[in-house]
């Protein structure tokens, strides 16, 4: 029930920010966020930023899967 996509903050003006993702740009409201900086990625839902996307955590999640792939190559089965 929650279509939200990550978009990068490119300008901030009070309670509003301009966000961008792959050539699409919109002005949204950042009033639901504690602090937002330029270049942050935020999840945009219904014209509002609702959460920041953490680069570290994203990396960690993808690395976990990468490790899975490598584990598959060297061993089989798991419980």
């Amino acid at each position, binding site marked *: *029930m929650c279509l939200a996509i*990550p978009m990068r903050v490119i300008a901030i003006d009070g309670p509003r920010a301009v966000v961008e993702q792959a050539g699409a740009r919109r002005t949204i409201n950042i009033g639901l966020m504690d602090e937002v900086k330029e270049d942050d990625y935020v999840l945009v839902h219904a*014209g509002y930023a609702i959460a920041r996307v953490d680069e570290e955590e994203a990396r960690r*999640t993808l690395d976990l*899967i990468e490790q899975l792939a490598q584990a598959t190559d060297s061993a089989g089965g798991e419980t």
Partner: protein
Amino acid sequence: MKYVDEFRDPRAVRELAQAINRIALPRVRLMEVCGTHTMSIARYGLRELIAERAELISGPGCPVCVTPQGDIDWFLAAARLPGVIAATFGDMMRVPGSDSSLEQERARGAEVRVVYSPADAVELARRNPERQVIFFGIGFETTAPAVAMSVLEAKGDSLANYSAFCAHKLIPPALAALVAAPDLAVNGFILPGHVSAIIGSRPYEFLAREHGVPCVVAGFEPVDVLQAVRMLLLQIAQGRAAVEIAYNRAVAPEGNPKARAVVSQVFEVADARWRGLGDIPASGLAVNAQHASFDARRRFDLTVSPAVEPRGCRCGEVLRGAIHPEQCALFGRRCTPREPVGPCMVSSEGACAARYRYRAAPAGGEA
């Protein structure tokens, strides 16, 4: 798209699917409670990828589907009032009330405007001072903060012609009702990632602690969903029950406190009726007394006849996960996206519509 494409990587999906299929367990039943999960699972055919290990079922996670008939009828009646602009998310346009829909009311002359954001509805109110703008506030904890902000914005501008019809609902009380039901056979919950971005993971802990049901907060891309499924299966295989977060890049255990504060400023918890689940105490939101002047329910005196459920419609059972869409006799026959009987087929993320629209193409072979 950054932070999206990486989580749709076919290789990663394959690895996760294989990892899931290697976990030695009898087939389990996992329930998701978010329409966006329903859509994503159907869109990417994830059900088929892990069919041997897990059966994925949909719960009451489609806000359009769980909005009671009476609320829809109220909003339709409001749209017919002279001088009203009825502003809504696109999701509600084709949902049938007892007699009509917003799409049909528009055809008959009502001014109905689809907006992407409740902030746009406030803008409509600014630009049309002689009209009354009523916003149809559906959605769960992800959306309630946005609607609350719109009320605060209207208040800040002293707009006398904006009000919200608050039909928001809360997920944890619905989950509590589900686990209390004797016939619920679910081995784990795939929890809604964006609701959780707002409320965090703590409100779900009773599911693991008191009911022993494993839970994982999941994102929406194929990698996210499969990651969560794998974590659930590992919990089950290891005999554990905990609330874990797979969607760490967007969800912190404490969620978004500021968004919750905005909600508390404008709304209060109230009893709510859920289509298919009945009345659940403290499971919805209502505009609080302090903001009564922005409460559409109080501002407009509307009488709505008792709603009537269509015969043969089993949306309630589908919403509880008690049956699959295909088990409803109307599915694909009398009830299709073209001519929907119940809300699960109208809403594009209702279990029935998602199942119908994104139905698997049975192997037809290649030329």
